[in-house]
């Protein structure tokens, strides 16, 4: 028999990392750096777990990188059913930061990539 459905509706904080979400709309990737101890974080954080300070500044990340690994998602989860196949990757940029991204172009481990956005997420374009 059918069980009673349980529908979860969520509200997620967006003001907390507003600069990041705004950056994505402009094709830029921002993250936070601790003003006190200089630790660069990605993803951005409100608080520095190393020196306990919460005094962070926003910095723009370099858009040059290398593709470290990737996977082509064929069977999509709930919420992504209407997307065509997408490639999830991890890129390491020239600041040494590792970012999850969607890969555009012919993915191969070790290829140079240019980091940009599609307005909603980080995109890494494989440079031929």
């Amino acid at each position, binding site marked *: 028999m059918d069980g*009673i459905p349980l529908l979860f509706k969520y509200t997620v904080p967006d003001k907390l990392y507003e600069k990041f979400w705004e950056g994505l709309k402009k094709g830029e990737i921002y993250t936070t750096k601790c003003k006190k101890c200089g630790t660069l974080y990605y993803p951005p954080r409100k608080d520095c777990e190393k020196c306990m300070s919460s005094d962070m500044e926003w910095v723009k990340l370099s858009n040059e990188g290398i593709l470290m690994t990737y*996977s082509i998602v064929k069977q999509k989860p*709930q919420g*992504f059913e209407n997307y065509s196949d997408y490639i999830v990757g991890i890129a390491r940029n020239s600041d040494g930061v*590792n970012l999850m991204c969607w890969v555009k172009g012919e993915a191969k481990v070790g290829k140079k990539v240019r980091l940009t956005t599609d307005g909603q997420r980080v995109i890494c374009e494989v440079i031929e």
Partner: protein
Amino acid sequence: MNRKVAVIGVGNSKFGKRDDVTIKELAWESVKEALEDSDLTQKDIDITVIGSTAYRGTEIYPAPPVSEYCGLVGKSPIRVEAACATGSSAAFTAINLIASGLADIVMAIGVDKMTEVDTSTSLAIGGRGGNYYWEFHMYGTTFPTYYALYATRHMALFGTTEEDMALASVKAHKYASLNEKAHFRNKITVEDVLKSRVISWPIKLLDSSPISDGSATVIFASEEKVRELKIDTPIWVKGVGYSSDTSYIAARGEWVGLEAARDAAAKAYKMAKISPLDIEYATVHDCFSIAEIMAYEDLGFVEKGKGAELLREGQTEKDGKVAVNLFGGLKAKGHPLGATGLSMIYEVTKQLREEAGPVQHSFKRYVALTHNVGGTGHYAYVMIFNR
């Protein structure tokens, strides 16, 4: 550990798509078997720890109904969770309760009813098995995707192939065909794996463990109780290792092995005062075929990058150098998250007692290990047992 701890009773339900029972009857199957195996009744149990992820079932707070159904009301004050390592987190808690002196006989029940939701919902729950905010929300990662990121990098750095990974699945199905409690009893070939539907490349359907329902129960006791109850073949807990890693997978900096598993293994070997080469039997967390290859390396059976060789040479078959997953592994025995870690202890106990029937491995030193990973190395437990 302050006090020695032994396994004195084990039970394992039939794994599979169990739409014939709710989570309660499913739990009872392994609880009953463990009580009969130890010759105890519920009144002998001091505390029960219930491991269940529960997200995919209708009973999202399963401990009270399971406890009531199994006649353990008043003895189940805690439910634990560590994603796919939930069963080991229950064992870990139970062992600690005895080692600390708080209890003498503790039952750990692991149970999950995972097939009550549809696959798309299940993938969306699994995709949250990392970091919702920075991963799933933007990138639609599924649980297979996380392991696929490791597989792609392992292939690029060490030349591991899709055929190599397929060998792990073929081995799992071969042994599961001899296990009447396994989710799958069919044998498969390398070609079947390579031709199966791509889920998250390079991971295909037959590289993946199934979404299973099942339960497993282990009863632990202190050394004094083992003597008092005159237990014939206690299986001693010799080493317990645990660790964890970042939720955001990109932050780890390398993707060819699970640092949490390496750290947990080092702690377990140190406590047991043995080396990886002393292990004669291991249950490893083969949720995907690449995970088995990485486990050989992370546990130190071979150096990093050589895992596929061990598989190709047949060294992890029955009576090989270190037999691995002779009950069919997560891949074919099944992977009901809450039960998996305790089912590993069930398997190791059966092997060390020489009660494993057609898949009985031949031991010299009677030393075995369980390796249970939660998430993609977000949690790891490695435990060492001997007779």
